[in-house]
């Protein structure tokens, strides 16, 4: 664990990998140190945002060092099932990059249990991982200026669902009709760090 400075009101904790991130995030989000207002997991790091009126970065650093990671506490709530129409514009290309047929990609994507590792990019956008899944798909060389909402996509070791129309460079393999971010629903964000996700092929 490396503690890196992030200004006068935040601290960045760098870890060896995603498993360590999830375990530390699970512990810190369950029991945040006093004065910590946000705990933000990412691929290799956990950011702690503090309220300088309540705490100091030294006190937060001490609390982080004294935290016992919880590798056992990664799953949150029920498994979310997302029906997907596997007709994305990049389905064939993504399959080829993985040495699979399009049907083989669909089989692998639906056969796995995915976990939301962290969120970012847009409200409700989750970076889903599947340990041991051999996913390694490069981003598109030229990002699209408009990715339709509900697009199910791959990039690097991650899969994700675009919550709304936005620019994006991920490979689009399908789309879901489920709104992953809906302000009319409580909670608005369906996917939060630790949520398990299973993709199922939607009937044609």
């Amino acid at each position, binding site marked *: 664990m490396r503690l*890196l*400075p*992030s*200004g*006068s*009101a*935040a601290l*960045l904790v*760098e870890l060896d990998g995603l498993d360590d991130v999830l375990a530390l*995030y699970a512990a810190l*989000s369950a029991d945040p140190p006093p004065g910590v*207002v*946000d*705990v*933000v*997991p*990412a*691929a*290799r*790091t*956990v*950011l702690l*945002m503090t309220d*300088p009126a309540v705490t100091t970065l030294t006190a937060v650093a001490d609390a982080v060092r004294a935290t016992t990671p919880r590798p056992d506490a990664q799953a949150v709530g029920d498994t979310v099932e997302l029906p997907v129409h596997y007709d994305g514009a990049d389905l064939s290309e993504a399959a080829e990059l993985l040495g699979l047929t399009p049907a083989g990609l669909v089989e692998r994507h639906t056969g796995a249990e995915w976990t939301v590792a*962290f*969120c*970012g*990019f*847009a*409200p*409700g*956008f*989750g970076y889903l991982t599947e340990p041991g899944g051999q996913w390694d798909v490069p981003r598109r060389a030229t990002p699209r200026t408009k990715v339709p909402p509900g697009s199910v996509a791959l990039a690097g070791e991650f899969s994700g669902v675009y919550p*709304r129309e936005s620019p994006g460079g991920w490979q689009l393999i399908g789309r879901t009709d489920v709104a992953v971010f809906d*302000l009319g629903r409580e909670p*608005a*964000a369906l996917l*939060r*760090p630790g949520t398990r996700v299973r993709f199922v092929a939607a009937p044609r």
Partner: protein
Amino acid sequence: MSLTVLATGPLTTVQDLGRPGQAALGIGRSGVCDRASAALANRLLGNRTDAAVLEVTFGGLAVRAEADLLVVTAGARCPGAPHAAPTVLRRGQELRLGPPVAGLRTYLAVRGGIAVPPVLGSRATDVLAGLGPAVVAVGDVLPVGEPVDPAPGVDLAPVPEPAAGELTVTVLPGPRADWFGEAVWAALIGQAWAVTSESNRVGLRLDGTPLDRLRSGELPSEGMVRGALQVPPSGLPVLFLADHPVTGGYPVIGYVTDADVDRCAQLRPGQTLRLRPAR
């Protein structure tokens, strides 16, 4: 009680202290860009610190009071504004803000707060995420809330004006300062950075001599807060303000201290910024 919007200037938004505590869901904090000025405006009226205010960018806002309202402005001083001096706006009376004398963002607070419906616990408009109330438009009728606490009865608060010309603020090394090395750090603190017109609530885009990385390759996205000086491939840093992305994949060379970010939020395009290392 309400205010009717007659003109908005280049950009007026409703803002409060934002949405802390939801960053792990990809929801940024947002909120007022200059927290100190907005807090002053609320304090002068006896509002709670989380009362929503109008953030007016480069003046131009005109409103009509639909009831007797106690109002005040703070931040960038605009001609025609009750600046740091709480004033009763009578029913039917109009308030028109001219272009500010110095600074960029003016906070118009109303006793009782702007009471548009909150979204995810806040009335802040996040222009990057597209969350919160819509950008204020001509014809909007903005509801005003009921005051909770007594008004303090302050006539005038003497406050310094935002800097005109060059602003110097304190910078701390960021988490990825080692991606750049000492010579580039010297270049960061050794030049006057020009604030460009592409700047907005997301961040100040700075122009100057580009900063070269020592290290190539990609940085896995990581969380960041306002004040971050992120260096994209162009080498020209972006200083993140209230609506910054929750995570970013370009290295952060340094951080402007939290209190100084408020002062940076008052910089106009064409002004220059100097970054002085903390002692």
